[in-house]
């Protein structure tokens, strides 16, 4: 049974700080983005100022639009494509920034350098009045504080049971998210995050936030991931690129004619060695391609494109 994923109430800052993913269970597992502040999100609800959208679709038949949603704590990218026709129409319709509520699925894109970029694939977008935006923000901040409180308790009390928390009105899913957050983000400056939330509360009170028209302030919430992020590998040189493409060409050729669609590792290595890519250097290329997720080895000795 797969119930509809709830829309976690999050601020832009929390979403920006989320860099850890988790796969769900079941036949068609959903992907969850874990935040440092105890959210385990598949879907989110956000409120803020939505910028006019720009088209980033490569072809006319595959329309894709992108806008920025800024709230008093930060800003995130909101996208919608032809699979979200309603949300896309809403994104396209505005020519000036306006307050809006956005419901959508979170996406984590990790670039070649290992840096994560979070965006929201909008399912529903609605322009709202200022009072509605403030009410939604109040809801977002309240639930964020509820989760921060839960994190503190998980840290201090240790012996919490999902049943007793449920009786207090805290869903088991939140408890689970809090425990996982603690493991994935052991060093998080929650104090700094709380200070960011004050901007959001001022907005709830009716003061125009600092990020109304300008970009959000420089991020001062530091998040350390566990495992700590690796230093980004040096960009591959032109020679390395050439080796990679040689390796991939040979792999494709072999896979094309093989019965099972896999390329035999030994065969690939022997072919690339005849082109001068031998021994340790070939291994290095293989490892790099695997690490970057270009190819995979689902069966020992059998390669394919990932």
């Amino acid at each position: 049974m797969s119930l509809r994923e709830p829309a976690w109430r999050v601020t832009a800052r929390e979403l920006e700080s989320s860099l850890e993913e988790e796969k769900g269970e079941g036949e068609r597992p959903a992907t969850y983005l874990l935040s440092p502040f105890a959210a385990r999100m598949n879907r989110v609800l956000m409120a803020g100022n939505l910028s006019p959208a720009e088209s980033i679709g490569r072809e006319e038949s595959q329309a894709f639009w992108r806008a920025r949603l800024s709230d008093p704590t930060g800003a995130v990218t909101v996208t919608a494509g032809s699979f979200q026709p309603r949300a896309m129409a809403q994104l396209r319709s505005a020519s000036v920034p306006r307050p809006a509520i956005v419901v959508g699925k979170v996406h984590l894109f990790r670039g070649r350098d290992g840096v994560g970029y979070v965006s929201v694939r909008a399912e529903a977008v609605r322009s709202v009045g200022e009072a509605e935006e403030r009410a939604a923000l109040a809801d977002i901040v309240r639930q964020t504080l509820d989760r921060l409180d839960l994190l503190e308790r998980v840290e201090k009390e240790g012996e919490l049971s999902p049943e007793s928390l449920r009786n207090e009105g805290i869903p088991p899913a939140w408890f689970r998210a809090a425990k996982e957050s603690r493991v994935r983000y052991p060093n998080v400056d929650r104090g700094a995050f709380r200070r960011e939330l004050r901007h959001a509360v001022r907005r709830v009170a009716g003061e125009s936030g600092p990020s109304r028209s300008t970009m959000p302030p420089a991020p001062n919430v530091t998040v350390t991931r566990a495992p700590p992020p690796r230093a980004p590998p040096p960009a591959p040189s032109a020679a390395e690129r050439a080796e990679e493409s040689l390796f991939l060409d040979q792999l494709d050729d072999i896979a094309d004619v093989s019965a099972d669609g896999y390329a035999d590792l030994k065969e690939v290595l022997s072919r690339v060695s005849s082109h001068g890519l031998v021994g340790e250097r070939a291994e290095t290329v293989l490892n790099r391609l695997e690490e970057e997720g270009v190819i995979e080895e689902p069966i020992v000795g059998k390669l394919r494109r990932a």
Partner: protein
Amino acid sequence: MLSGLLSDGTATVRFTWWDPPREGVERGVVLRAVGAEVREYRGRAEVTFSWKTRVGPASPAELPRVDGEEIPFRTIQELKPAEEGFRLEVRVVRIAPKTVTVGTERRVMHEGLLADRTGAIALSAWSDFGLVSGEAIRIAGGYVRAFRGRPQLVLDERSSVVRIEGTDLPDPAQLLRAPPRSIADVEDDGGGEAVAVEGIVVGLLPPSGLVYRCPTCHRSVRSGICRVHGQVEGQADLRARIVLDDGTGALTVNASRADTERLWGVTLEQAHERLRNQPDPSLLEEQMLESLLGRRLRVRGQGTKDDFGVTLTPESIEPAEIDLDAAAEELLARLGGGG
């Protein structure tokens, strides 16, 4: 063959009679069976009258004497489907007669809601006990069945109802004023009677907007065809299947025509009028979504759960307002000093 239910006042079991009398058996008749077979089916005892069984008429005096004082008390929370042989002290929250057709016979039954300190349960009474909302009663001889996945207490002519003081039973108004619960909690419980939740509208499920219903059974009509009554003249109706989300979970609220008109601010007649000017019916749904999306609602009603989650049949849908100044003050206090 004949099958049905047998009861001797201590329990009710299903029975199968392979060779019943030609003239049939009257409901309420007392029988004596010697050499009946008992087997278990899905964890419940079942009685079979086979060729080895001698069945004959008997007098009610021969039924085992049941001492009412020996029947154990249960609370509503403890009741599970297929449970019987218990006593219950409850408050009648509401009760209303309803005419139903059983086979060819039209019967009047009474539907309602009962509550004690542990919860609430739907009531379906097949005979009239003269129940009035607000009174406290002690019930014996009822049984629990599952109706749309929720336990329901069934009373019939063998059940007994006694009025009691019921000082420790909740006030019905109190039950109907209960604060909203988290949707995650309602999902965990598989729905519930008189459930209150509060959340934000995050979407509409089809079919929402203008729908056509069978004039006989009110099922929605597709291409002019009712699932049960075939080709019919569909009657126009407005409805909204609202996805309500409170951040812990989401459920579907099936809003009636009156609720939909009130929330949307467009009546069925006005929707028809719009359709004349913009003949695309999907635009209506779009406009309805546009007006509902992001709105905060407090909904109270009966929740049932299936594979797609919880569906709430609302008794009331009200816009929920947030006092922004009070909220800001409260949130600031929670954020604490510093910063």
